[in-house]
């Protein structure tokens, strides 16, 4: 198995090296497909002054909300942060900095960070507060703004199945931001529901090739539902 075996046995190993002031890119959308175990471990570690790049910031007592509770986040880069009273309080108190980024731009910034694209143009946000201070350029008669890539010291990612080489498959819409996050961490940690032997996953169905993954851990997941909507 040797050098390509990415499996670690504890979250302590998985997040070894995470320090105050670092930037973390987190997968997940709402509470769906979030790296629950990594978040719990970061809470336990007590590291502070974190910059977190994630589409949302969880709820008060679950997901990234736990790190707000621990006053560990200095800055959030997100598209929507509306589900969280602690968030609101820390923001109003000036403890928490927020950089609102359109959802598609955020996904593309992560992808760009992993793909060696330092910046790209997008029409999203042109003429809005998001475009303020950013370069505007016209292509084919339309105006676009320049957006720069993001990368993280760590990326924390939730997968479904992975082989020991770190080839990952996501389940349903729990995919969301996870594949891009996985490419954009200097150290990428993936937690999954099941680890299988190499060869068990069909090569053409792998969402995140193992080259992006540094540490892999099997976790247990509450998978809390944010809005339980049922058919009548």
């Amino acid at each position, binding site marked *: 198995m040797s050098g390509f075996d990415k499996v670690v046995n504890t979250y302590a190993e998985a997040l070894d090296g995470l320090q105050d002031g670092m930037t973390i890119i987190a997968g997940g959308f709402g509470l769906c497909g979030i790296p629950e175990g990594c978040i719990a471990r970061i809470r336990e570690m007590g590291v502070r002054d974190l910059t977190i790049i994630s589409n949302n910031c969880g709820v008060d007592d679950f997901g990234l909300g736990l790190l707000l509770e621990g006053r560990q986040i200095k800055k959030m880069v997100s598209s929507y942060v*509306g589900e969280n009273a602690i968030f609101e309080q820390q923001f109003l108190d000036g403890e928490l900095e927020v950089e609102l980024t359109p*959802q598609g731009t955020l996904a593309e910034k992560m992808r760009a960070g992993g793909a060696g694209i330092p910046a790209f143009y997008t029409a999203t946000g042109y003429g809005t507060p998001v475009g303020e201070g950013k370069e505007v350029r016209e292509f084919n008669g339309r105006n676009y703004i320049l957006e720069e890539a993001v990368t993280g010291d760590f990326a924390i990612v939730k997968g479904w199945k992975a082989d020991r080489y770190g080839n990952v498959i996501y389940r349903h819409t729990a995919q969301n931001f996870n594949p891009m996050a996985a490419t954009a961490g200097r150290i990428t940690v993936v937690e999954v529901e099941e680890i299988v032997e190499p060869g068990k996953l069909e090569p053409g169905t792998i969402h995140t090739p193992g080259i992006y993954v540094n540490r892999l851990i099997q976790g247990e997941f509450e998978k809390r539902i944010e809005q339980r909507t049922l058919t009548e």
Partner: protein
Amino acid sequence: MALSRQQMAMRVARELRDGYYVNLGIGIPTLVANYVPEGMEVMLQSENGLLGMGPFPTEEQLDADMINAGKQTVTAITGASIFSSAESFAMIRGGHVDLTVLGAFEVDVQGNIASWMIPGKLVKGMGGAMDLVAGADNIIVTMTHASKSGASKLLPECTLPLTGAGCIHKVVTDLAYVEINDGKFWLKERAPGVSVDEIVSKTAGEMVVPEVVGEMGF
């Protein structure tokens, strides 16, 4: 009489075509899915990464890993595809979605839209709205024509921070169907029993009114 929310959704639904890929925002836009004309099929895109969104699940189908952009549990229809958020917004930004329906606070004669931020109020974020308005060629805004206090939402110039610039051409309000072109509102249809005068009086931006304005039928 002003249209109900259901009637607004019904009016929007008339813009659907067979084979359309459609993104529906939260609120009235979501209701549009209930009024897809008989014999027509549309496929719903949910920007978190699902093309072919189905109805809410039964207890047995309920799955925390299957949600829509509103974070509600949903199902996927037969023939759906599921992908990353980067792929989802590639579709959206690349103009592959045929129709986008969303709410707004204000629109103006330049086709600007404000829908995400009221200064002084806590800002929750734009989510995917800025990508949706920037990416789509075909967008319908649906909102009440005026606020509860009577202030017009169809303005000469948006007063709130924009979601997108120059991207809106069609508006369905509770009073009228209005198009936006050449720096003007163009009154196209009125709600049953609503007078042109009422619509004009509740439209702050310049509006072109044809001699005859047809009434929507329901």
